């Protein structure tokens, strides 16, 4: 996407201050783009109002794909392509197929889930990650607010809300992509 994006960043020192700030900022009507922290903050995803991940749905669908691929493959091979008598069983003996079908289900569910997660989280190998502030890997929590999303609000007003919510610094950050 060829467009410039402008963010306002609130830098927080403490996770309790951050948690309160998230609630305060959201209740004042500002939409938060994302919060970055050096370690997982318990309950932050609830405070940000994140909906539950839909990743399990992807896992289920890929799992079903694995089951049907495995069954089709085995049935085709054993019944039509190269029928063999093994242990006096039928050519297409269903119990024999279950271990392979199980393994293919697990394999495709796992691969599919990892793949979908990487794509949806922008973890492609060629992706350029946006670094909002280097200190988020050290000791600071950073709340990023996208100005384009909050176009109904004045930039100065947003900055004021951030500093009154306990931010130790309020900065601007732009990316040109």
């Amino acid at each position, binding site marked *: 996407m060829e467009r410039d994006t402008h963010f306002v960043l609130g830098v927080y020192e403490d996770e309790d201050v951050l948690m309160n700030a998230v609630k305060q900022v959201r209740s004042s009507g500002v939409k938060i783009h994302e919060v970055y922290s050096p370690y997982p903050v*318990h*309950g932050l995803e609830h405070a940000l109002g994140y909906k*539950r991940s839909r990743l*399990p749905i992807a896992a*289920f669908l890929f799992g079903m794909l694995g089951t049907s691929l495995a069954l089709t493959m085995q049935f085709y091979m054993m019944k039509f392509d190269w029928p063999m008598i093994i*242990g*006096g*069983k039928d050519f297409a003996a269903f*119990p*024999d197929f*279950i*271990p392979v079908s199980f393994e293919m289900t697990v394999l495709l569910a796992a691969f599919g889930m990892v793949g979908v997660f990487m794509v949806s989280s922008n973890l492609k190998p060629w992706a350029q990650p946006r670094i909002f502030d280097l200190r988020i890997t050290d000791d600071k929590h950073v709340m990023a607010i996208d100005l384009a999303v909050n176009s109904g609000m004045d930039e100065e007003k947003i900055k004021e809300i951030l500093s009154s919510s306990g931010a130790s610094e309020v900065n601007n950050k732009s990316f040109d992509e």
Partner: protein
Amino acid sequence: MAHEVQNFNLDQKFDFTAGIKKSIMTVLLIGAALLVVGIVLAMMGGGHAEEGAEAGGHAFHWYQRLFANIWINNVYFTGIAIVGVFFFAIQYAAQAGWSAPITRVMLAFGNWLPIAAILMVASFFLMGHDLFHWWHAELFDKASPEYDSIIDGKGAFFYWPMEKGTFPIFYIARMVIFFGFWVFFFSKFKKIAAAEDQLGGTSHWFKMRSWSAYFLVFFAVSSSISAWDWVMSIDTHWFSTLFGWYVFASWFVAGLSSITLLVIFLKGKGYLEMVNENHVHDLGKFVFGFSIFWTYLWFSQFLLIYYANIPEESVYFIERLESDVYGGFIFVNIVMNFVLPFLVLMTRDAKRHGIFLKLVCTLLIVGHWVDFFLMVQPGTLGHNGGIGFMEIGTFLVYGSAVALVVLGGLAKGNLIPKNHPMLEESYHHHI
């Protein structure tokens, strides 16, 4: 630090009201009535004269079916009772925090153990000869035409140190020792729990952890051997190396379902306020996970026997799958204990909401009874078995008797271990 659990009533006791007693008694009476109808029908109907593989050439009597039923329920409900104690011990040995407020619910199931012990030993003496093919002296007599060299080779496992075919002293000793130790550990846990309620402090928790570890070691051995003794030895010629685990898994799922049902029941009555959907979710995960574990064992046993197709092994499944009586129940077993729980409990919401869990847990309690029915009846009754009034009646009588004993035991002590050091941690459990 302020403890938020102090906001709850930690001294609550389960009130076993006359209303609950009455409804359980109603089920018990319905069960007894069905049992009587079943017995009368069986007496009038008589049995087919056909001989099952292990029937030993005796003519079939109606009371054999009653014996088989009593044995199924003895084994099944002993399992649910001991799994309550086992799951309790797991919580302490694993130093689990989340389960602190429901540990007493698990322990309450152990109250059935002393009664189960009496029933099991008494019914073994009364019915053992009809249930167990190996309790026939002529099998061990080389001069007899009935001599069976395979069973003779296994004889010492039942009769040592006495002469084979006389009195199964080794078998009975194992039964008595297992029940003795199980009851001993159960009363030990109960005693420590009562002391903890009175005195507080962390020393009781550490004591409980040590005793739990000892119990788990003993249970690991005793659960496997009791499965061989009480269930696998019915099909005397046959053996399966994972049978101990298979029976344990069946017991465990049934026990977990009973614990979950009881927790949801107590919550519905207004007890256990600090237990929320996060704790129920964890119980649901256990039920879901161990249903799959049971399926894994069932299928592992089936696939190897089916694939190798060695006659002395596959006879177990041929007796069941190709039988008019039991063939259908194999599939009922798989659908009730794997397919339905797997599909219904797959989503997160289903594990957090009582209604789905109630449904699945009830299904599993009946389903694992069917599993034990399939383990016991083909070897004892052959073509004369099946599910009729007698089976349903015996199951209801036993089930409601267990419910009376367990709830009665639960009402005696504190419902919540109020001095458990991890109660606060459990309150903040979030998943």
